[in-house]
C-alpha cells in the first residue's frame, strides 16, 4: 500500500452564484521517502491540492489517506495533532513569527507536540546547525536574508522529524543561487532522514530534484512522470 493515497479528490470554491472547480476528481499515490513535485501554471489548483493533501483545507469530496489514516475523517483537533506530529511545512513567504527569533520559531514546532522546553531548545539549535544557521539562532526574522529565513522555515519543518514535508513554492521568493542551495539541502535531508517531500512549484529546475513530477492543469492531473536526478 502506498504511503499517501489520494482518491477522487475534488474541491469547488463557491463565491455567490459563481462556482470554480479547483480540483476535479484527482487520484494518485505517493510513496514513502519520495520527492514529488507538483507542477503547473498559475491558478491551476496545485496549491489547493497541497492544502487538501496536508489537511489544512477541506476537499469538497474525496479522500486523502496517509499511512492508513483518512485525514479528512478526523476532527479538526485530531487533524491538527496529526499535522503537528507527522508533517512539516515550508511556505513561499516563510511565515515566520516576527516577534520570535530563529531558534524560538523552530522550537514552536516541537512545543506543539509537547516536547519539554529544554529539549526543544537543544533540538532547535541542532536543526539550525544542520541548515547552516547555527550562528544566526538568536536573530529575529527581520534581521535575516530571504534565503536564511527560508532555511529557518525548513528547520522548523524538520525539527520534529516528521514523515512528510509539504513545501509550497519554497524557492518562489529566492534568487537562483539561493534556490539551488536550498534544493540541495532538501535533497540531502531527504536522503538522510528518509522523509517524504511534496513540493509545489512552477519552476522546472526545482522539479529536476524530484523523483516524480505531477503535472496539473485546470484542476486535473495531466501527467505523473518519473524523473531521474
Amino acid at each position: 500500500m502506498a504511503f499517501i493515497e489520494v482518491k477522487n479528490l475534488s474541491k469547488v470554491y463557491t463565491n455567490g452564484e459563481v462556482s470554480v472547480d479547483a480540483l476535479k476528481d484527482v487520484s494518485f499515490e505517493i510513496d514513502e521517502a519520495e520527492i514529488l513535485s507538483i507542477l503547473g501554471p498559475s491558478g491551476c489548483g496545485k496549491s489547493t491540492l497541497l492544502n487538501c493533501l496536508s489537511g489544512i483545507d477541506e476537499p469538497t469530496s474525496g479522500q486523502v489517506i496517509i499511512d492508513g489514516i483518512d485525514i479528512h475523517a478526523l476532527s479538526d483537533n485530531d487533524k491538527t495533532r496529526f499535522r503537528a506530529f507527522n508533517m512539516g511545512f515550508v511556505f513561499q513567504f516563510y511565515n515566520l513569527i516576527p516577534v520570535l527569533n530563529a531558534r524560538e520559531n523552530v522550537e514552536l514546532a516541537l512545543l506543539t507536540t509537547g516536547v519539554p522546553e529544554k529539549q526543544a531548545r537543544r533540538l532547535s539549535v541542532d536543526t539550525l546547525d544542520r541548515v547552516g544557521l547555527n550562528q544566526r539562532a538568536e536573530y529575529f526574522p527581520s534581521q535575516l536574508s530571504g534565503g536564511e529565513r527560508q532555511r529557518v522555515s525548513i528547520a522548523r519543518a524538520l525539527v520534529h522529524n516528521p514523515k512528510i514535508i509539504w513545501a509550497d513554492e519554497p524557492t518562489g521568493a529566492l534568487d537562483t543561487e539561493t534556490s539551488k542551495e536550498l534544493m540541495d539541502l532538501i535533497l540531502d535531508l531527504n536522503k538522510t532522514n528518509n522523509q517524504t517531500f511534496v513540493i509545489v512549484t512552477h519552476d522546472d529546475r526545482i522539479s529536476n530534484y524530484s523523483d516524480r513530477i505531477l503535472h496539473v492543469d485546470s484542476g486535473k492531473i495531466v501527467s505523473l512522470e518519473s524523473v531521474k536526478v
Partner: protein
Amino acid sequence: MLVFLAAIALVVVSFIVISMLSDRITFKMSFRNIFRRKANTLLVVAGSMIGTALIVGSLAMNDSLERFIYSQIRETLGEIDQVVVTSAESDRGYRRLFQLDEVKELTSLLDEEDLIDGVLPILAREVTVGKEGSARSMDRSLSTSAAVMGVDFSLLADFGSQGVSLADIDPLVQNDLPQVLITRELSKTLQIEVGDVLEVMIDTAERLLFWIELPRVMVSGIVDAQGVLGYSGLRQGMNNAKIIMNPDDARRILRIGIENSFNELLISNRGDYLSGAALTGTVIERFEESGLEDEFTMVPIKEQRIRMATQGNVGLLFFALSAFAVFAGILLLSNIYLMLAEERRTELGTLRALGYTRKRVARAILFEGFFYSIIASAAGVVVGIIITMQILEGFVDLVSDVSMLLPIENAAMAVSTFEQAFRFFIKPESIFFGFFLGLLIPLAIIFFSGKRISRMNIVAAVRGIPQVLGKKPKRFLRYLEYILLGVSVLMVYSGISDRNGAVFLAGLTLGLLIFPLSFPFKRRRIMESICSISLIVFVMLSNHVTFIAEQSIDSIPLMIVKGFAILFAGLLLVVYNLKTFDNILGTVMRNGKNRSPVVKVAIAFSARNKLRTGLTVAMYAVVVYIITLVSIIPYSQEKMLEESRNDVFLGFDATVFAAGLQGRLPSEAEIGAIRGVESVTTLDSAFTRILLPSGRYSTVPAYLLDDEFAESTIHRNVVLWEGVSETQQARENIWKYLSQRDDVIIVSASVLPEVVLGDNVQLYLPAKVEIIGPGFFMPASPELAEEDISLGYFRVIGKIPETSFTFFNGIFMPRSVVDEELRSDMIVDSTFLLNASSDKDLKQTKQEIFDLSIRTNSLSFFVDDIIDLVNTAVRGIVDILRSFLYFGMVVGIVGIAIVMFKALYERKRLVGMMKAIGFTRGMVFRSFLLETSFIVVVGLALGFVTGTLTTYEMFSSPFFEGFEVFMPWGQFLFMGITFYLVSLLVTLAPSYIASRLSPAEALRYFE
C-alpha cells in the same frame, strides 16, 4: 488658546480639503480604505470617539462645577464686593446701626478715585415668616425663616455696572400694608402668590406670645433671588428666602426706632461681578486710610467667597481627574492612529515604489485619518456631553437623597437651590476645544507617521522590515535628548532656587527619564530601570524635602507632577522590562499540555511590540491609577470616621444644641424625661485665652464638664501625660480624674498644636464676646485685654489627637474651675450630650428628641446618623467620580479590542501557519486571550501599584498627618475582576475568529 486651536484646525482642514480636490486618485484610495474593513473602521471611529468624549466630558465636568461655584457667588452677591458694618456689638451680638453721613467720607473717597460703581445701604435681618395667621405655626410647610432686606428701590437701578432692574414688577393698588417683593424660593416654599398677606415674626419667643399682633406685609411681586436681591446680609444663612421692602417699612417691621439707620453698606467695585473683586485690595487700603477703621469694619465678602469656592476639594479632585482623563483620551487616540499608520505601511511603501512622491504618500494616510477623526470627534462631542449630563444628574439626585437625612429645616430649600444651580453646563469654547483636540491629535499623529513612512526605505516599507534609523535622524534625536536633558537641569536648578516643588520635580522627572536614553550605556535596560526606580523612590520620599512638603498641601501642579512622575516611571519600568515578564511567565507557565507554545507566542507579541503594548498598558494604568486614588482616600477617611465613632460627641450617642439666634435649648430635665435616654450632661462652652509657651495668646473654646460627663462618657481617645500616675493613666479613668481636679486640663491637638503634654499653661476668660453669626461667637479683641479674668495655671494631662473626628475641639476642664457667677456671665453656648438605650425603641427615642428640637427650634444629632450621613455623602460623591472613571475605563477596553482586532488582521497568515504546524483551535484562541490577559493584568497592576504608592506619598505629607491608609481590597478585587472579564469579553470575538480561521485561507491572505 481656543482661537489658536481654531486657527490651526481651520488651516489644517482647508489644506486637507484643497489637497483632496487636487489629488483625486489619492482621495479616492483613502476614501475607499474606510469601507475596506468595516469592523476595523468601526473600532477606529469608536475608539477615537471615546477619546474625544472623555476629553469633552472632563471639560464639561469642570465647566459645570465652575459655573455652579460662580453662579452661587453671582446669585448671592451679584456685584457686591465689600460690605461695611459697624465694629461695635451689643450684648446679644447685634451690630450698632449707622447713618449714611457716618460713611459719607469713605464713599466720596472711593467715588473720587473711580474705584466703585455703586453703594447701597441696607437693613437686613433674619425673621420667621408665614402666610397671614401661620407665622407662629410649627408646621414647616406653613412658616419658614427668611431674610428681611430693607433697601431703597430707587438706588437699586444704579448699583453696579448693570444695576438691578425691577421694571417688570407692577405696583399693587395701594393699601395700608407695606408692599414687599419676595423671592421665588420663598414663594415656592410657602405657596405664596402676588397679593397674599404675610406675617413676620422677629423673635421665636413671639410664637408663644399669641396675643401680640405680628406685623403684616403684602406681596406685590416675586423676583429671582439673584445678585443684590439674593443677598441676605452678613449674619444670615445661605437660603434664598427673602422679603425685600423699602427701608422705612423694614424699620417699622423690625421695630427699629432710629430714622435713616442701616446695618450694612454694600459696595460694588468698578467692573462686573467677577472683575470687580480685583479692586478689593485697593478699596480696603482706602478704607483704612479713611479713618473709619475704629468704628467700622470692611468685609471683603466677594474675595472670601471666591477663595472658599475655588479651594474646595471637589474642584481639586475634578481638576486632577480631568487631567488624567484627558491624558487617557490622548493615549487612546495616539494608539489607534499609530496602529493605523503601521497597518498602511506596506501599501504606502508600494505607492512609493510606483512613483508616488513622499508628500503624496504622507497625504494618502492623512486623508484617511481625516475621514475617521472628523466623524469621530463630532460624535465624541455628543457622546461626551450625554454621558456627563447623566453623571451630573446622578450627582444632583445624590445631594437630594443626602439632604433627606438632614434634620435641618432649610435643607430642602438649600437643595432646591443647589438643584437649580448645579446643572450640566459646557462652555461653547470647551465643545470646540474638545472637538479640535479630537481632530488635531489624530491628524498630527497620522501626519508624522505618514512622514516617517514616506521617508522609509521602500523595500523596508513594502516588506515590513523594521527601519533602522539613519545617521541624520539619529543625530537629531541625540541633540533633542541633550536639549531636554539641559532643560531638565535648568528646571531642577530653578525649582531649588525658587523653592518651587512642582518645577523641581518636573525637571527631575524629565531628567531621570531622558538620562538613560542620552548616553550609549552598555546595559541600557538596567540603567533605564535604575532611573525609573530612583524617580519613584525620590517622589515617595519627597515630603522630607522642606519646600516640597510645604507645598504638598495646596499646590495642585505639584500634586499632578508627583502623580505623573510615579505613573510614568512605573510605566517605563514595565515597558523596559517586558522581556522579563516574558521570561517569568514562560518559566511559571512552562508546564502543562500545550501551554508553552501558547505562552511563548502570546507574550512574545506583546513584549516585542513595545510601543503598542506600552500605550495600551498606559491606557489601563492611567484610569486604574486615578480610580485607586479616588477609592483609597475616601475609604481611609470613612474607616477613620467609623473608628472615631466615640470621638464625635465625646463618647455620647447624641447632642442637642440651640439653632442660631432664634433657637432656644430645651431643659436638661426635658431631655432626660424622654423614654430611652439613659444619661444627659450639659456641656457649657466659654471662650478662654491661653498663654502659649511661645508667649502668644490663643483664643479657644473651653468646655466645662460636670460629674455626669465623667460618669457617662465612653470617650477614650486621649494621649496621656506620663506625669499622671499609673492608675490615673488608665484611659477609663482620665475624665473622672479630670473632674476631681481644679488644676489640670485636656486639650485638643487640632486647635492647640503647640501645647505639649505636661505644659503648665495660664488661662483667662475674655471679658467681652461678640456674636459674628447665628451661633458663632468670638472674643471682642484677639489680644489679652486688661479686664480679662485669669483662671490660673493648669497642667495639660491629656491631648485629643488631631486625627480625632469630633465636634468639640478646645480645652476641657471641670465646671467647678469657673465659679457660678462668672459662669453665668461667660458661658456663650450650651450643648447637651446624651446616651440613649440601644434597644428596639431607639427609633422612638430619636423621634421624640427630634420633636423636642422642633418645638424649641434647637437641633439634635445622633452620632450614628452623622457617620451614616457623612459616609453616604462621601460614598455617593466617590461613586459618581468612579462612574466617570469607569467610563474612562472604556478607553482601555476599546483600546484592547482594537489591538486584538488589528492583531487578527495582521497575523492572519501567521495564524494559518500556526494551525498548519499543529496549533489547535483552542491553542490559537488561548494565545489571543493570554495576550489580552497579559496586557490587561499588567495595566491593572501598574495602575493599582502606582496609585497606591501615590496615596501613601500623599498621606505622608503634612496635610494628611496622622492619617492612616486603609485599602478597600474588596472594591479593588471587584474592579480588577470586572475590568479583566470585560476586557476578555471584548476580545472574545477576534480570538474566536482567529481560532476558526481555515489555515489554507489564512495562508492565502494578502490584502
